[in-house]
C-alpha cells in the first residue's frame, strides 16, 4: 500500500511538472510595447516597400528599404532617426544595374545587388558606384537557371563570402504542372562566391510532393535559422522543408490552430490577373519566415484568407498590398509555441525586422488612422509570457 502511494505521488509530481512546462510554452506571446520608431520622410522617400533589411555597422543600427518609385535603396540610421544614404540604382551608364533587383547588405562596405534578369550580382558602394559585377547567366558547369525576384521572403542570404539565391521555378510544360522531369532538372538554389566570383547551382531538388501538382504562381519563401538550417516553404504545401547541406530535406509539418486554406490549381488564372487576385483573397499562404536569433524563435507570417469577399478594384489592390496576417511562433526545433492575431488595418507586414530589443512591425497600413506617406512608423513587439 505504501509502495502504491509512493508511485501515485511520483506519477502526479511528474505529470504536474510536464503540464507546467507545456503551459509555460503555450503562454509565450508577442505583445506590443509602448516603444516605437518614428522617422520623418522626405519628398522622395516612401514607406511602402517590397524589401527591407535591418543591419548594424560600426555600433550603429540601420534599416534599408527598397524604394522602387525612385529606383533607390534608402538607408535610415535607426539611432538618429534620419536617412543616412540614398543609393540611386542607375538604369544607364557605367553604374547601371538592370532588371528587377533586390539587395542584401552585410555592412556599409558590402551592399550586394541581385538582379533576376539577366541573372547577375553586383557590389555597390554608398555613393552608387558599382565596384564589382558577377554575371550569373551560366554556372561553373555551364548550366543556367534564372533567379526569382529577390524580394521579401525570397531575398538572397549571405553566409561568409557565399551568397545564396533562390532560382525561378521555370517549368517546361505550359500546363502549370510540375513534372518528374522538372523535378530532375530544376534546382532551388544558386550560390555565388562574392570574393572569387564562382557561380554554382546547388544540388537541392524541389520537394517530391510537388510532382504532378499545378505550381503556377506558387510562391516560395526561405530563411536561415538556428544551427545554420535553411528553411523553405512553398505556398501550395503546408510543410516546412529544412536543409543544412543543400542536398537533403527534413519535412516538418507546420502546426497551427487555424485551418489553412492553401491555394491550388492556379494555372486557370494564367491570363486572368484579376481572377488570380480574387482567388488569392480566398486562400492562406506562408508569406515570410523570420528567425529571431536573439530569442531563438521562428515567426511564421501567414497571410489570412478574407472572410468577406469584396470585388471593388481598390479593395482588391489594398488587400494585395496590405494583407491581413497572423504569426505562428515556433521554437528553434520547430515546435509550435503560440499564434498571434493582430487587429485589422493597423500593421503593414511587408516591413518588419528583428533587433536585440524585439520584433518591430510597421504601422504604415493605409487604413491606420495615423497613416501618413511622410512617415516611417514601427511598433516594438516583445516576446513575453501571458
Amino acid at each position, binding site marked *: 500500500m505504501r509502495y502504491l502511494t509512493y508511485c501515485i505521488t511520483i506519477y502526479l509530481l511528474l505529470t504536474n511538472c510536464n503540464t507546467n512546462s507545456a503551459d509555460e510554452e503555450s503562454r509565450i506571446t508577442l505583445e506590443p510595447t509602448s516603444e516605437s520608431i518614428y522617422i520623418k520622410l522626405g519628398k522622395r522617400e*516612401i514607406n511602402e516597400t517590397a524589401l527591407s533589411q535591418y543591419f548594424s555597422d560600426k555600433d550603429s543600427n540601420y534599416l534599408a528599404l527598397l524604394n522602387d*518609385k525612385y529606383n533607390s535603396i534608402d538607408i535610415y540610421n535607426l539611432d538618429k532617426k534620419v536617412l543616412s544614404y540614398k543609393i540611386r540604382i542607375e538604369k544607364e551608364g557605367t553604374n547601371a544595374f538592370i532588371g528587377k533587383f533586390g539587395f542584401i547588405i552585410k555592412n556599409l562596405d558590402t551592399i550586394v545587388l541581385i538582379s533576376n534578369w539577366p541573372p547577375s550580382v553586383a557590389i555597390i558602394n554608398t555613393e552608387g558606384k558599382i565596384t564589382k559585377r558577377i554575371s550569373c547567366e551560366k554556372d561553373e558547369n555551364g548550366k543556367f537557371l534564372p533567379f526569382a525576384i529577390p524580394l521579401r521572403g525570397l531575398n538572397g542570404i549571405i553566409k561568409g563570402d557565399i551568397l545564396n539565391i533562390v532560382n525561378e521555378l521555370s517549368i517546361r510544360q505550359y500546363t502549370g504542372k510540375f513534372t518528374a522531369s522538372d523535378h530532375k532538372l530544376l534546382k532551388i538554389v544558386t550560390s555565388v562566391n562574392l570574393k572569387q566570383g564562382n557561380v554554382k547551382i546547388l544540388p537541392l531538388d524541389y520537394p517530391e510532393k510537388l510532382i504532378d501538382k499545378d505550381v503556377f504562381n506558387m510562391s516560395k519563401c526561405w530563411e536561415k535559422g538556428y544551427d545554420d538550417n535553411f528553411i523553405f516553404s512553398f505556398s501550395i504545401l503546408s510543410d516546412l522543408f529544412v536543409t543544412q547541406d543543400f542536398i537533403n530535406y527534413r519535412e516538418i509539418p507546420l502546426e497551427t490552430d487555424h485551418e489553412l486554406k492553401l491555394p491550388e490549381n492556379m494555372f486557370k488564372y494564367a491570363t486572368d*490577373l*484579376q481572377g488570380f487576385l480574387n482567388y488569392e483573397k480566398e486562400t492562406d499562404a506562408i508569406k515570410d519566415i523570420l528567425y529571431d536569433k536573439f530569442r531563438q524563435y521562428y515567426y511564421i507570417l501567414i497571410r489570412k484568407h478574407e472572410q468577406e469577399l469584396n470585388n*471593388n*478594384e*481598390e479593395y482588391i489592390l489594398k488587400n494585395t498590398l496590405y494583407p491581413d496576417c497572423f504569426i505562428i511562433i515556433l521554437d528553434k526545433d520547430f515546435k509550435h509555441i503560440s499564434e498571434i492575431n493582430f487587429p485589422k488595418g493597423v500593421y503593414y507586414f511587408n516591413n518588419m525586422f528583428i533587433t536585440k530589443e524585439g520584433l518591430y512591425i510597421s504601422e504604415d497600413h493605409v487604413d491606420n488612422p495615423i497613416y501618413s506617406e511622410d512617415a516611417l512608423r514601427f511598433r516594438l513587439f516583445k516576446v513575453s509570457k501571458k
Partner: protein
Amino acid sequence: MKNINLILFLGIFIISCTSDKETIEMDNFLKSFNLNINDYKVICFVPVDGCGTCIDPSLNYARDARKDYLLVMSSMYRKSIDITAERIQIYDHNYVADYANLSMKKGLVTPFSPCYYFLRYGKVIRKLDLNQTNNKSGIIGEVEQFFIEEDANIEKMEKTK
C-alpha cells in the same frame, strides 16, 4: 422570331444601360475635379503603380496630346502620382491627379493597366481596358484614328449646317 426580337431588344437595352452608367460615373468623377465631360473625346485612366511596360506608352502619349485628351493618374499614394508626373514631365493642364484613388473606387480603372474611354458629345461610346490585352502600345494608334474620324465627322456636320 418574336423571341429573337426580344433578345435583340434586351441586348441593346443592356448595352445602352451599361454605357449610360459609365457616362454617369465619368460625369460624376470629372465634376469632382471641376471638369466638364463635354470637353473631352478621349479619357485615359492610368494606375501609376502598374508595371512600366503597361503604363508608359499611355503616359508618354499624354505629354504632347491634344486638349480634348485627358490623362487621369490614379494611385492610393500621393507620392506615386507626383513622382510619375515628374518622370514623364507632363504639364499641369494635361492631367488630373486622382490622389484619392476615386477612379479605382468607382471601378473606372483596374489596379494594373490603363483604361481608355472614347466619348462623343459627352457620352461614353466605347471603353477599352488594356487589362484585357497584351498589346499595351497598340492603343495609341486607335486613339489617333478615333481623333481623325471624329474631326472628320465634325467637319462634315459643320459643312452641312
